Each structure stands twice: as structure tokens, then as C-alpha cells.
């Protein structure tokens, strides 16, 4: 499938990709190569200009508008720019994703603190996003994506503002969630993370898939990177 933005940018160009249920996939490629754009197709923020997108057996691009919210409830997304609601506290931001599904208040009261705890933000639950550091906002976004136990989790650069040890914790968390059966797609630039996890790595370049390895590294065919030891 392809995606051409209204301003004529060809963000994705003839991409064909199949992601198995329950798998863990890294999406890499340098800046502006189409990683976020690819993810956007999956939760239908964008519709491909050409081609078809299937998620969980449903054709997403031809979906009726009124069905879209239900798709999105099954797809947790950690946005690259967080997209937190500025008018809601951390707690409310996370709770919101659960409340929209019609969850019972009882469940909300139990799930939200659990998720905040997982990302280490429990003590900041009453703060507004503007009162958080960059990394804390990012973790809040992660908690929100997790809270309703989605079948699919899309993470767009989920650790860009996190220190290495918090990054490890988050990646371990994702691994645990993946083991419980959630499909996870992570778009990232973090070489260390990719290299350590050794999972499927899909590499995008100018909107095309240039490689797709089952147990890949960040740099093609390298164990430890050349940049690091430059």
C-alpha cells in the first residue's frame, strides 16, 4: 500500500507487510522515512491512497467512520508526541482511555493505578501534563496505551525521552505484555534496544521496506554498531 499526504509527500510507497498475531516487531529507519506514517494506517488516522490495510481480519481503510472508535479501542498507541490531554491530570488521561470503552467505574479505579505503577508514575497521578518532565509525559502516554489491555500495541518512539535504565524497564514491560499475547510494533531509533532484544526488524527507507529480518540488529548485519565506537 501507499500513502501520499495532501501536500504531495509520498510517505509510503508500495509497502507490503504482514505482522503475525502475538509477534513483536521493530520498525526502524532514519528520520522522516515513514515509520509513523505506517503506524497511522493501522489505527486509521490516515487512509492509504492506494492499497488495503487489514487489522485483526477487518479491512481498516474501508471501515465505516462510526466503527473507527471500536478499532482504536483494540489498538493501544503511544504517540511520538504523546498527545496527552492538557486539561486532564495524569490519572484522568489514563482513565479516559478506559472510560471511553464504557468500562465500569470499579474497573477504572483498579486498572489506572496499576498501569501508572507499571511505568513508575503513581506518585504524579494528580499532576497535569504541563507539570511533568518530558520522560514522565512519555510514560504517561505509555500507561494510557496499556490501560485497556489492547490486542495490539503500537509504540512510536516510546523511549526517546527516557534514560537507559527506564528504557530497559519499559522494554521489559512490553516484553511481558507481548508474552501475554499482545501484538507489539515499536518504531524506534534506539540502537541499543533493538540490538539487545533481537526481534523481527523491519527497515523503512523513503517509504519502502528495504529489509525485514527475523532476529535483526539496528545496523544491517552488525552486532555492535560502528557509530558507537566511532
Amino acid at each position, binding site marked *: 500500500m501507499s500513502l501520499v499526504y495532501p501536500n504531495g509527500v509520498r510517505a509510503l510507497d508500495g509497502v507490503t507487510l504482514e505482522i503475525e498475531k502475538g509477534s513483536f516487531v521493530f520498525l526502524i529507519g532514519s528520520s522522516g522515512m515513514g515509520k509513523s506514517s505506517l503506524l497511522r494506517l493501522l*489505527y486509521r*488516522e490516515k487512509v492509504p491512497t492506494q492499497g488495503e490495510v487489514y487489522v485483526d481480519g477487518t479491512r481498516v481503510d474501508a471501515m465505516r467512520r*462510526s466503527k*473507527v*472508535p*471500536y*478499532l*482504536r*479501542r483494540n489498538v493501544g*498507541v503511544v*504517540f511520538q508526541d504523546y*498527545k*496527552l*490531554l*492538557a*486539561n*486532564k491530570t495524569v490519572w*484522568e488521561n489514563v482513565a*479516559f*482511555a478506559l*472510560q*471511553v*470503552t464504557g468500562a*465500569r*467505574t*470499579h474497573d*477504572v479505579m483498579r486498572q489506572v493505578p496499576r498501569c501508572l505503577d507499571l511505568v513508575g508514575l503513581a506518585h504524579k497521578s494528580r499532576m497535569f501534563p504541563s507539570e511533568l518532565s518530558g520522560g514522565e509525559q512519555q510514560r504517561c502516554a505509555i500507561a*494510557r496505551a496499556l490501560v485497556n489491555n489492547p490486542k495490539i500495541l503500537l509504540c512510536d518512539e516510546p523511549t526517546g525521552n527516557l534514560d537507559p535504565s527506564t528504557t530497559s524497564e519499559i522494554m521489559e514491560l512490553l516484553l511481558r505484555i507481548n508474552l501475554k499475547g499482545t501484538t507489539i510494533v515499536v518504531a524506534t531509533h534506539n540502537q541499543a534496544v533493538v540490538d539487545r532484544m533481537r526481534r523481527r526488524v523491519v527497515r523503512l527507507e523513503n517509504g519502502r521496506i528495504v529489509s525485514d529480518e527475523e532476529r535483526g540488529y539496528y545496523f544491517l548485519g552488525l552486532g555492535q554498531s560502528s557509530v558507537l565506537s566511532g
Partner: protein
Amino acid sequence: MDWGKVRFFLGEVFANFARNKGMQLTAIATVAVTIVMLGSFLYARETLGKLSAGLLSRIEISVFLSDRLGDREARALVQKIAADPRVAGLTYVPKSEGLRALRERLKGQIDTSLLTTNPLPNAVHVRVKNPDEVHAVARTIEKISGVATVEYAQDAVTKVLRLTDTVAKIGLAMILVLVLATAVIISNTIRLTVFARRREIAIMQLVGATNGYIRGPFLAEGLVAGAAGAILALAILAIARAELLPKMIATLSFIPFEIARVDESHLILELLAAGAAVGFVGAWFSVSRHLRT
């Protein structure tokens, strides 16, 4: 029923309000000002209507009785006229009294001592309930036997009626303009408050909220802002009325001021409902516009 959800919804509305205080208060102030304007105009119009009705109700039909009628017959005729349901009241002026009045009127203009015989007939001065009916009543009375002539300011009545009518039409047109303006202003204001939060709406959609779910709090807020503005406006109007009305009545004491009887309860309800409704509908359309994209 999950009361938690209800509490959550109300909490949502309340929190949004508190967290956008500046914006919401601005919106409420605008709504209030608009409704004060509309309200004071409606009030002025109603008052003027009553006023002109009061002035018109003073128009009299002078009925002159034939000289052949005796005193008893004359009184019977008066009874008959008084029985007409359109007649508000009448005064019987026997010829002797009429002469006295005429003398009074002409004093200084003519040498009244020259009026030695009484040239006047017996007269009845009739007031009608509805100024529109002056013509009709006059024509009915004319046909009663024993009535010599019927006189009234035919021309003046027609003119005044036409004037009142035009003024009423202009008033109605102005009110339509005002109501329309109120609606536009309030809904534009709500639209701007929604516009300032368009990013929020987009995020809510991305997180899986249905359009209905997103709309809810905005509609409630629009409703509350509209209603709050209206209530504020009504309070201002009530204070203004309490302050100004006595002064106005004092100044215009010579006019049959029925101002106190303007029925306000329905006006209050209407303005309140209008404020709330426009806020609600404005929010509906504004949010919908942002939901579509």
C-alpha cells in the same frame, strides 16, 4: 446504572469548566450581555405597546341624541349602548351640562353671553375597549334609532392606528434581528471556545472515544454557559427594572402606565430557554465540525 459514570460525567463538565475558567467566563459574559440587550429591548417594546394602547383607549366617540328623545328614552338608549361588549365605558352629558362645558371652552374666544338659547343636543361620550374597533362601534351606534349624529376623530384614529401598527412591525423586525443576532453571537462564542480546544477533540478521537462520547461534555458546557449567561442577564435586568422603573413612572405619571403589568414570567422562561438552547445547539455544530475531520 453505574453512578460512577454519572459522577464522572458531571465531574468532567465541572472540571472542564474550572480548567478553562477564563474562556468560559468570557463566553458567559458575552451571552449575558447579549441577552440583557435582547431582554431590555423586549421589555421596552412591551411597555411601549401598553403605553400606546393606553393612549388609544382614551379615544372617545361622541354620540349626539335626537332632540325629540325624552329623558327616559335617552337613558334607555344609553343603557343599550353600554350593553355592547366592545364598549369600555361611557358618560352621559345632558344638554344643560354640555352648554356649560361649551361656554367654558369658548371663554375668551367669543362673547359667551351671546349664547342665550341652548343649541346643544344631549350627548353620550363612549370609550371602546379596543382601539381597532372604534370604527365598527361608531357605525353600530349610528344605526340605533334616536341617535342624531356620531362624531369621533376618525382621521386621527386611522392615523394613530397605522402608526402603532408600523411601529409594532418595526419593533417585531428589530426583535427578529436581535434574536437572530443573539443566536449568532452566542453560537459563535461557543464555537470559539470549542475551537480553542480542537486539539483535545482530535486526541479524544484517537484514543477511541465515539463522537457522542466526545460531544457530551461540550454540549453540557454549552448548555450551562448559555443558561448561566441568561441567568446573569435576567438578574441584571431585574435590578435595572427595580432601580429605573419607579423613576420612570414618576416622570410619566400622567400616562396610564400599565407597565407594572407586563407579564415577565414567560419572558424570563423564554430568555433562559433561548440562552440554554443556543448554547447547546452552538456547541453541537461546533463540535461536529471538528469531529468530522
